[in-house]
């Protein structure tokens, strides 16, 4: 039998190598870490395209839901591990503690964006957005002989009692954006009155924004107040679902991106941010996004599929994101006192 020694020293070296590999190395030049809350299949398509256009950058992406990502970014704020925030709910990004982490950068292409889609100080810009929608299960609706609701006002009708699931605004950004839109659109008095009327019909406030749609598609409830994205994904999967964009206005959210002050690879980070506004990226957005802010982008396939009119301003609540972010604590406190269960 041969000696075991070489094998052992090799395995020791291997173990040491593994241990060294285990310790995470901070992003080196040529490597870019993006934290995002974009959806899974979009990320896959965008990163594949970006890697083709920016072959020398090793793009690494961490995807978490909007709420989890916020907690993670703030928890790591002492020593951030990412170079850019990429596609994250603007209402969350506008938290002063997050804005403080960002460095102004006027990405190439951002000059063409409308003023509402970028920060005055250049700390963020939003290339895309998503909007609220109702997910309506047509089978349950037929079984219960209910008409298709087409507006927020419809949802408050007593016939839908116990058949509506809605995201809890205290735990879900989507839930908050919906009540913020209603309150901003109707004004505080009428808004709260409406929310209380709606509350009488709501069977459950679910803790995530996409879960009400999943509950509706699996037939647990007839209607899930959720996101257009979740509705379209479910329809594509084949569920007996109809997406309804409320005719009296849908809340929406912008997905903002920005450069981290702490980034050790700002050159590549900037090139990546430029890319997110490039025509190549815009072309991809039309495949997934109902709302694309880049001017001159052809009407998105997603918007067509959603049955949206060419001019979105008619169906979207004119959201004031700075106000949503500012009033968040007070609004949620009121919601918890008057409606929360």
């Amino acid at each position: 039998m041969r000696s075991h020694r070489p094998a052992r020293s090799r395995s020791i070296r291997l173990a040491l190598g593994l241990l060294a590999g285990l310790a995470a190395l901070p992003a080196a030049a040529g490597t870019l870490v993006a934290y995002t809350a974009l959806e899974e299949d979009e990320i896959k398509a965008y990163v594949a395209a970006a890697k083709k256009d920016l072959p020398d950058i090793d793009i690494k992406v961490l995807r978490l839901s909007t709420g989890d990502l916020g907690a993670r970014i703030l928890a790591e704020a002492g020593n951030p591990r990412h170079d850019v925030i990429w596609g994250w709910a603007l209402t969350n990004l506008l938290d002063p503690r997050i804005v403080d982490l960002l460095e102004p950068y006027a990405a190439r292409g951002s000059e063409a964006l409308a003023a509402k889609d970028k920060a005055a100080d250049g700390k963020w810009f939003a290339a895309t957005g998503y909007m609220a929608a109702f997910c309506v299960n047509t089978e349950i609706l037929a079984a219960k002989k209910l008409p298709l609701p087409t507006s927020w006002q419809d949802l408050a009708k007593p016939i839908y009692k116990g058949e509506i699931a809605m995201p809890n605004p205290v735990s879900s950004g989507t839930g908050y954006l919906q009540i913020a839109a209603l309150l901003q659109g109707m004004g505080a008095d009428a808004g709260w009155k409406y929310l209380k009327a709606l509350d009488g019909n709501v069977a459950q406030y679910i803790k995530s924004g996409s879960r009400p749609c999943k509950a509706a598609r699996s037939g647990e409830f007839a209607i899930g107040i959720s996101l257009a994205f979740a509705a379209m994904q479910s329809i594509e999967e084949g569920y007996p679902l109809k997406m309804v964009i409320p005719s009296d206005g849908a809340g929406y959210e912008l997905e903002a991106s920005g450069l981290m002050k702490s980034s050790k690879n700002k050159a590549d980070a900037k090139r990546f941010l430029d890319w997110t506004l490039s025509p190549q990226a815009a072309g991809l957005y039309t495949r997934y996004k109902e709302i694309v802010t880049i001017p001159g982008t052809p009407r998105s396939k997603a918007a067509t599929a959603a049955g949206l009119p060419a001019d979105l301003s008619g169906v979207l609540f004119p959201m004031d994101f700075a106000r949503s972010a500012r009033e968040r604590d007070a609004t949620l406190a009121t919601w918890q006192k008057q409606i929360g269960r």
Partner: protein
Amino acid sequence: MSGHERHDERALPGGEEEPMTAAPLAAADRWLMRACLYVPLAALLLFFALPMGFIAWRSLMQDDGGIGFANYLALLDTPGVWQATRNSLGLGVATTAITLLLAFVLAYGMERTCMRGRRFVAAALTLPLLAPSLVLGLGLIFILGRNGIVGQLLGIRPDIYGFHGLLIADVLYALPQAVLILRAALRCADARQYEAAEVLGATPWRQFRDITLPGMRYGLLSAGFVVFTVTITDFGNAVVIGGDFSVLATEIYNQVSGQMRFGIGAVVGLLLLLPAALSVWIERVAAQRQAGIGAESAQPPQPRIARGRDGLYAIACLGIASAICAVVATVVIAGFIRLWPYRLDLTLKHYDITVSGGYASLWASLAVSLIAATAGTLLLFLLAFSVRRLSGWPARAATLLATLPVGVPGLVLGLAYVFAFNEPALPWGALYGSLFLLAMCNFYHYHTQGYVSMATGLRAVPAQLEEAVAVLGGGVGRLLADVHLPALRITLWAVAAFLFMRSMVTLSAVIFLVTPELSLSAVTVMRLDEAGFTSQAAAFSTCIMAVVGAVALLLHRLTSRCRVP
């Protein structure tokens, strides 16, 4: 002080009490003994006390930048927090009562009867441990939901969301952990006590009441405390099936992930440590009362065939086991169905997972879990062994620290790890983002359950046997090799398997520690579910369970081969 052996009083089987006389340890052995304590204690300090210290510090950091108790005061005004506290306590008590009852039946059936199907019951009981938390909630909704199988069959729309659904899910989740502890407690009895009782003409009920129950008091208390604590800290079930029933764990989530406020979240996280801390005190009282049952020639009771009893236990245990299987099997089957519950033809397409990182995370999880299980079992064994032999404050501190982790919700532990380890200036900062840190996080998340099982199992080791080894000149090494390892073999494997399984699927803490390069399977399941790919999430969960099952079988084969015939 730490070198002194403990001189507790232990009752001999006959009932007469006699102080245990300890032979002095050799100097080298004393050092070895201390190392057995200090290594796990140092690890506890670094991987549990230090991160939790950061949480305590955060709980004092006020929104205005100052330091003080504002967050604690703000908690009193937080709407809904009292309701959530009441809900959590009520749910905890109900879950504990039901779980203990069922767990006792299961543990007794498996350890003390000759009922059939014990292997099946044991296998079924591992399912809630090795299934991602989504699986239990999803399975219950598929079966008992408003559009579930039961509702469809009966033509009704039952409402499972809220207290009742959460109760069922939490019982399912806590049951295996309680059985783990109760089985360890039932293993440490002395058959001769029962023989003596038999000779004296005691009825089986009398034997049960006077021998079995008192011998299990410690195990029952520990199991009850573990069940209560995991119930009030569990988030996974509450979010899927809890509906509008708010509990403290969801309250923390609302604060931290919903509103990006760490202060109040940290306060609630610390308050949830109270039951665990209280239990340490209760345990100490119980341990003083508990008569030492181990005798030098203690023989584990060999169950005898009793048809009526065995049949009853078989019905009860198989019933519970089948219910668990049904919940998990529904999700497994849903992973093979084209579109649950609308188009029921079979397909493999959901196993073609290309988003969310695909299957790569499965192997990372496997590595993390193997490290957590081996390092964890070793550290737990050394700790349980050394605090039994040593007194003094380091041993007491170690016992307290070992018992606290169960009271920490995963989300708080994850935050604590970020605060403590995302510090490049500090020597342990290099661990951040590493496989090893994830393994340690998962191990310390479930530290208490492992420790309690180990400590319960160690009670079976007769003190007299330890003395005999010492008198014959055997050192600490001999003691470990000849007395404790053989006596604890089953418990050691059970603890390792438990740590391995939980580490494969635990989620809320690791959300904060995964990196773009290093993701874990539980995170993949969550991401698939969030993206709306429910069937793929079910399919991926099935893969996780299959991998864990395969590893468990492999280990079982390996261990049964080295078993002494």
